């Protein structure tokens, strides 16, 4: 594939548009320059393209019927199949056919299919109303069960299942890097984890490089919003279980949820929308958080937590429950 032929068709369905808004924050280079130089161009994007109305429908129909070639289909938002299988909760404007049908027609022609964001990957919040009256689903998943709109056996022209760039929203880098990998080097099954997420962001945990790690080590926990301490014990943080590189890649320059002072709600994981308890409170049994760090045996966690709490320095203990450092690190003379 040459570097001038990675054409992307983008549709938005049952979502908030936030993944596109986040994508536009791509840095350091302006998004359009970054993509253009990698040979990636939008055939049509609902928020960005000039073509509107009948002209836009013609472009999409040409793509769906194979008259106009394209490489990648990006779908943002859940696919809404209700009410009663009619798809009328989201009909394509100006056309009257269910948007889910358009997504399926286009997916059948695409070399790669990307689910952009948690809604398109798993169904998202639209699928989390009790009983799912919207009949919402992801492209190839319903929450954590394979299936979804396209079915478990779907493979795009490249032979891959849907690539799930999950997150609510996506980090711009997750999509830009995945598109560039596909465009310039190709993607294989070895590039994806067991949920179809690109390993280039999903082989890390949000916990990695969390700026609160010293508080985590000593189980010096925040008690209330804006405290500097670890958010795992009381305020619902799931960063030790969530697959993403948020604290390595950082958001909007220097941010992340943890750096913003609030819990990771594991928005890259299927089913994060309905945790079964309040998002900002840690679910515990007998005083022990139910959601322990992945890969960590419970007995060891409990033993280490008890030990580290007993060894917590005064500085860490006091700063954990303040919104600014009240005790500074000790000064030592002569570098000793």
């Amino acid at each position, binding site marked *: 594939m040459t570097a001038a032929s990675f054409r992307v068709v983008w549709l938005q369905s049952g979502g908030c*548009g936030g993944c596109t*808004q986040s994508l536009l*924050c791509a840095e350091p280079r302006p998004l*359009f320059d970054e993509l253009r130089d990698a040979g990636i161009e939008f055939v049509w994007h609902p928020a960005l*393209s000039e073509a509107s109305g009948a002209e836009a429908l013609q472009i999409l129909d040409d793509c769906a019927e194979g008259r106009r070639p394209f490489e990648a289909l990006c779908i943002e938002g859940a696919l809404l199949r209700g009410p009663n299988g009619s798809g009328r*909760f989201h009909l*394509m404007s100006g056309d009257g056919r269910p948007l889910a049908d358009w997504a399926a027609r286009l997916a059948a022609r695409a070399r790669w299919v990307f689910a952009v964001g948690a809604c398109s990957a798993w169904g998202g919040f639209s699928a989390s109303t009790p009983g799912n009256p919207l009949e919402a689903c992801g492209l190839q998943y319903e929450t954590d069960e394979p299936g979804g709109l396209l079915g478990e056996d779907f493979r795009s022209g490249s032979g891959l299942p849907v690539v799930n760039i999950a997150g609510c929203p996506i980090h711009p880098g997750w999509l830009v890097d995945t598109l560039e990998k596909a465009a310039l080097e190709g993607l294989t099954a070895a590039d994806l984890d067991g949920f179809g997420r690109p390993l280039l962001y999903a082989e890390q945990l949000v916990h990695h490089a969390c700026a609160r790690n010293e508080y985590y080590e000593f189980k010096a926990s925040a008690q209330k*919003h804006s405290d500097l301490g670890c958010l795992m014990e009381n305020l619902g943080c799931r960063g030790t279980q969530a697959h993403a590189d948020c604290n390595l890649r950082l958001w909007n320059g220097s*941010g992340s949820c943890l750096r913003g002072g*609030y819990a990771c709600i594991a928005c890259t994981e299927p089913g994060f929308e309905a945790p079964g308890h309040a998002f900002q409170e840690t679910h515990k049994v007998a005083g022990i958080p139910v959601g322990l760090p992945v890969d960590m045996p419970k007995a060891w966690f409990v033993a280490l937590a008890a030990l580290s709490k007993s060894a917590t320095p005064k500085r860490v203990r006091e700063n954990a429950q303040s919104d600014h450092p009240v005790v500074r690190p000790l000064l030592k003379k002569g570098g000793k």
Partner: protein
Amino acid sequence: MSRIVVGPFNRVEGDLEVSLDVESGQVAAARVNSPLFRGFEQILVGRPPADALVIVPRICGICSVAQSAAAATALAALAGVAPPPNGVLARHLIQAVENLADHLSHFYLFFMPDFARPAYAGRPWHGELAPRFRAVDGAAAPELLRTRARFLNLLGFLAGRWPHTLALQPGGSTRALTVAERIRVLALLREFRGFLEGTLFGDRLEAFAALAHVDELDTWAAGRAADFPRFLRAAADLGLARCGRAGDRFLSFGAYGLYPAGTWQAGAVDNLDVARVREDVSHAWLIDGDPRPPAQGETVVAADKAGAYTWCKAPRYAGEAFETGALARQMVAGHPLLVDFVARHGASVTARITARMVELAMLVPHMEAWVRALVPGEPFCFSAELPESGEAAGLVEAARGSLGHWLSLRRGRIERYQIIAPTTWNFSPRDAAGLPGPLEAALVGLPAGDGALPTVQHVVRSFDPCMVCTVH
């Protein structure tokens, strides 16, 4: 008479379809369809109340902070808590970053590309504007995207990330700024001011914000090499100050302690009385009933309802359709330039765009002052204890206008949650009395059909619709 269905009506946030009845080359009647229903009001029912802070930002990817602020305001009322001074300043800053980023994205990414259309080839300004504002590959795009991304870096400091932050809490902000970060934040604001003054206005913000009459604006714009003056020259050629008048009734819930809440109609500002808000569902695919105040609102799907043509309810204030947004905020606040615009020709494409520019110019100096007023070391957030039951409303201004959340709690769970978003007002359908929504009224009389200039496109986008919020 013929009917034209325009859709997908793109370069707006979300899905939009506009039906036009055309007679003799002019729009005789318009109907606006919001074709996506996601049922957020149902998602919220039964959840713990603080979960609203996670769920409501996800209604909208472009005004997620405004949704957060409305929920946090309502929950603060239930908890009987008010944020500390730093928390109030942080919230103002976070909301202002989002609102101004939205104004800028709207102008460059959504609105201006229509002036690059081939239909305008031959106009005196087309040769200058088309290569600059063309969608995606226009010359203005790289600097705009870099500026927008850098401006949103403010929320990396203040709110962890954008969109979908949890930093806004009933008791304030989770993110206390340090002395060092305050310096970086001020530097980012200087950088943003530099773009506005160099590229968008070609003048000091304070000088532009002080323009008080349309004549002064015209003189100011003449020959000025900057993007907003470029728009003004094209708009003058196309007569856009006379296009897009709705009912000239304006609504604002008030913002930043700078812009008051109120209504404006027939030349007079009046106090806001929220008890006069009703939502009519007669033309929505929802079960019929008398118009209800939002605190008693219902959202029950009736997908086969005859006569319905949208998922959007029709909010009315004292039985009338009201326009909301930057122009409405500035009319209620009495900004002399916008008042002069409306006195001449009513609300219009040019007036709505100018109102956003006025807010960009006015708010950046306030943001600079808010950052300087932050006191590191003093609290940013108070604890908030939520009651088991109660009712409250959270009324805020999003970039696109008045946003209200009405909720009630019972036994520690959300019992009812009703939302009226800005574009619910602006793009509402007809009500039971047949009264059209503001956009439906604004489109009547515009040229349409084969060979017509894209005036309809300008008028629709002049409202900066957010369709994902509209129905939610």
